[in-house]
């Protein structure tokens, strides 16, 4: 079996933690789209969910920063943030070490991947799971791309990582869903939090939707930092997802909610 579902979503901690500060109608519409993505994902009856996240020093730090990491445990904890601050209770999320090991082993044929038998989920994974698998009953294989501590993983390597995950999924017997999480343009954790470049986001999502590899990989980090902020570096996860799915994407929801700091995005991609 191979991939049965592929999608992208936002992961900003404000989506849950600052929900009460948002315009109620905008918040409700986005949360509904997020839950609907979860319904669509689970309807494909996956055995496991690969989450490509861009974590924020929950586990990986500048003392030993991997360009890529994949979890290899039978369970994970999260969220690492204060539950009241993020608005999500701390819980244990099932993993599947054996499947992780097979995915890592195959991915390593072309991409140097760090593996982790311990992993505390931060909002990059905890916020999406809150909506996508609210009962925490689907084993998760967490993946990380370094989008935080420069030197960052190059975009073309993020693409190669997605290709490697696809190859690994094709070799597995399980039905696998894959979701990438991140912001597009945003300036989080600064006084600018809430600044959004909606036009840049539309252009990026257009490139993503048509799975235009050359256009997706043409951004330089200097351009992204200027036009989309340091949060824009997280486009790496959406790029990896496009490489894994290979199909055309559809953006189901994209609305700017400044108190959440991002264009709140939900998208799915055909698996080709």
């Amino acid at each position, binding site marked *: 079996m191979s991939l049965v579902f592929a999608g992208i979503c936002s992961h900003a901690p404000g989506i849950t933690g600052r929900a009460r500060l948002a315009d109620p109608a905008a918040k409700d519409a986005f949360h509904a789209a997020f839950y609907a993505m979860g319904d669509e994902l689970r309807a494909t009856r996956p055995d496991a969910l690969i989450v490509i996240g861009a974590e924020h*020093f929950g586990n990986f*730090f500048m003392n030993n920063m991997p360009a890529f990491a994949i979890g290899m445990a039978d369970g994970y904890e999260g969220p690492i943030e204060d539950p009241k601050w993020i608005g999500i209770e701390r819980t244990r999320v099932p993993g599947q070490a054996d499947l992780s090991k097979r995915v890592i082993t195959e991915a390593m044929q072309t991409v140097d991947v760090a593996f982790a038998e311990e992993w505390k989920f931060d909002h990059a994974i905890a916020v999406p799971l809150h909506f996508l698998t609210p009962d925490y009953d689907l084993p998760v294989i967490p993946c990380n791309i370094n989008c935080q501590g420069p030197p960052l993983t190059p975009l073309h390597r993020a693409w190669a990582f997605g290709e490697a995950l696809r190859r690994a999924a094709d070799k597995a017997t399980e039905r696998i869903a894959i979701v990438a999480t991140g912001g597009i343009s945003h300036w989080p954790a600064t*006084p*600018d*939090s809430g600044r959004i470049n909606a036009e840049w986001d539309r252009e990026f999502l257009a490139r993503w939707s048509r799975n235009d590899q050359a256009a997706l990989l043409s951004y330089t980090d200097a351009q992204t930092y200027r036009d989309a902020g340091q949060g824009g570096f997280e486009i790496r996860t959406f790029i990896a997802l496009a490489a894994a799915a290979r199909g055309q994407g559809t953006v189901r929801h994209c609305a700017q909610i400044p108190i959440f700091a991002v264009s709140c995005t939900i998208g799915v991609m055909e698996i080709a």
Partner: protein
Amino acid sequence: MSLYGTQKFLYHLNRDPRVQERYRSDRGALLAEYELSDEERSAIDRGDIGLIYVLGANGQLLMHFAAYLGMPWPDYIQAMRDGVAKHGPVRAGIYAMTTEMDERVAGV
């Protein structure tokens, strides 16, 4: 500049409840374990979010120190603005302020 030491402290504080407890009960000895300048040590000791922001700490690390100190979101955002007003632009890292001092893009 020992920004790395500041960020390493924040990393440990954010993920380890024992470090959180020691910050409250044994702060001097805790901070002695990190390579910090006097300015950095003083800023961490006082919970001076604005100055730590200006010194260049990664926002994703600093954000949780503010939450740990009990700062509501609007106060945390304002503390960073106040830090820039008092100490000047962010000196390192990738979390510089790009909006104007009175530009509240998210209403806070």
